[in-house]
């Protein structure tokens, strides 16, 4: 880097992540054993942990840990806008992945922020919020392997809509993200909601990331990666959509628990 960063404690110009000796025995990382192929990955989701924010959420699923906070709706600086503005920023903690993500050199979050914004805009009733902005911040604390971009995106979408709902901002429905991977090698439809280690990534080439509003039966975003037959792709989308309903249940449940913990809506029970 030619420019000197005066805002941070200086680091050496070049440092490389540790190189490990080759493994002696055959790779111990093979197939996961903690759940079967058809099982969805367990999700831990909790709302309301960040007391300073209007709404917040924390998710742990598929080797990803993300904290999300929502500020707003808050007044926006001029010019006047008839609709609310959605600002979203994804940030990786420097220690979140291997190798370390040095601040400034990490350009991936920009692209992820744009994709997530696109998936969230259809959810929020922005037309009800003139002259205001909603600021959503996601902080990825851990994302196990380099290629788990889809996991960051799908869980980011789920946790962001949890946080927006926690902030009491009106939405058309709760958005959830799901990832389906199918193995090309064996050609059997191997429904994994996510990958846990690198070995699995190498075998699993086809990926679908589906953003949806299960309560309305609507899809907000599809991202495909790999080579698909049309039928296979449709199959996988359907699979992802049916799994999204389960994710939705978890999301709704955690919102309910979060609200009850703070005594909101208790009298309705």
């Amino acid at each position, binding site marked *: 880097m030619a420019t000197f960063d005066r*805002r*941070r*404690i200086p*680091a*050496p110009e*070049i*440092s*490389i992540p*540790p*190189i*490990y*000796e080759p493994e002696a025995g055959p790779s111990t990382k093979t197939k996961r054993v903690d759940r079967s192929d058809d099982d969805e990955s367990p999700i831990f989701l909790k709302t309301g*942990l*960040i*007391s*300073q*924010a*209007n709404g917040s959420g924390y998710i742990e699923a598929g080797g990803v*840990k993300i*904290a999300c*906070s929502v500020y*707003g*709706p*808050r007044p926006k600086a001029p010019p006047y806008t008839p609709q609310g503005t959605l600002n979203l*920023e994804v*940030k990786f*903690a*420097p*220690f*979140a*992945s291997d*190798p*370390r993500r040095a*601040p400034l050199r990490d350009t991936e979050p920009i692209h992820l922020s744009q994709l997530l914004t696109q998936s969230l805009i259809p959810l929020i009733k922005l037309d*009800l919020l003139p002259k205001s902005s909603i600021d959503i*911040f*996601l*902080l990825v*604390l*851990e*994302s*196990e392997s380099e290629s788990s971009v889809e996991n960051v995106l799908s869980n980011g979408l789920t946790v962001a809509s949890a946080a927006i*709902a926690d*902030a*009491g*901002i*009106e939405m*058309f*429905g*709760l958005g959830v993200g799901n990832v389906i991977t199918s193995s090309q090698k064996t050609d059997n439809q191997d429904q994994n909601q996510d990958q846990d280690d690198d070995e699995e990534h190498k075998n699993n080439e086809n990926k679908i990331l589906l953003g949806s509003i299960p*309560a309305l039966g609507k899809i907000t975003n599809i991202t495909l990666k790999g080579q698909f037959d049309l039928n296979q792709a449709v199959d996988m989308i359907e699979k992802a959509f049916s799994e999204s309903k389960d994710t939705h249940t978890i999301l*709704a*449940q955690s*919102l*309910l628990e979060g*609200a009850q913990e*703070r005594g*909101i*809506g208790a009298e*309705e029970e």
Partner: protein
Amino acid sequence: MAATLTAQQPPNEASSSSAGPSSIPGSSAEVFKKLHPSQYLSRFLTKGYRPDGRKIKGWRDVSINVGSISTAHGSSLIRMGDTTMVCGIKAEVSEPTAQAPNEGYVVPNIDLPALCSPNFKPGPPGDEAQTYSNWLNDLIVSSSTLSPSSLVISPGKAVWVIYIDVVCINYDGNAFDAAVLAVMAALKNVRLPKAKYNEETTQTICSRTETYPLQLGRIALSCSFGIFSSTHLLPDPTSYETPLLPTTISIALDEDNEACLIRQEGLGGIQGKSGERVLGEAWNLAEERITELREILEESSL
């Protein structure tokens, strides 16, 4: 219907208040708190309490959790009241400088992202984060918590760079104390792989199985105070109290209660007390608190 669950709150409520979801808009105490923060605080103090329910000289509860981040060589998550900090330590290999062939690098940074408080903006570290990063660097270097000379793999050829990154998740005041505690807990949690420098390939190869902990020197812990309207010395200020405290004092002590860092900012002291007495009072409180913190720190690293 789960999707409409949160719509029970009227939407204009959220737009009129910028406080957390727990605030009850319209209640007169809440309005008074917003409009006259200084009087609000002083009324609590005359009764002997702080707005968050603790005694005037009370500290907030602390919990430490280590090793929860698998992508880091060492990590910790600490909560001090509502203030939450995550510290992750990652080691990388680099060449030492020509001036100091027998020294590795220690790179501590504190980030206060826009996520943790409504007062911070996204983008590069703000003034507060930069200040704390420098304090932390001073503390680690000056009290030789982690000496650069213990990080050599092969003199002049390869050394460890220890990146200490602290990220705030929830900012409810007193970030520096929380960050120092997080760093110390994470440093104790670090396990570095055994590394060998190969002269022929000029590569450093690390063992997959053998690891060792860092050689740590003095473990300093910090305690901060604020002085309210030249009358009250308040330990462990929250984010609500901080803007009302023009004078702040930070004291960091090591295992033998020797000072590693003392810092006072602002002109005000306490009326009728000499600066020496105020500082002595703060020191005594800090000594007590740091003993407690040290116990929690020891328990967490077991």
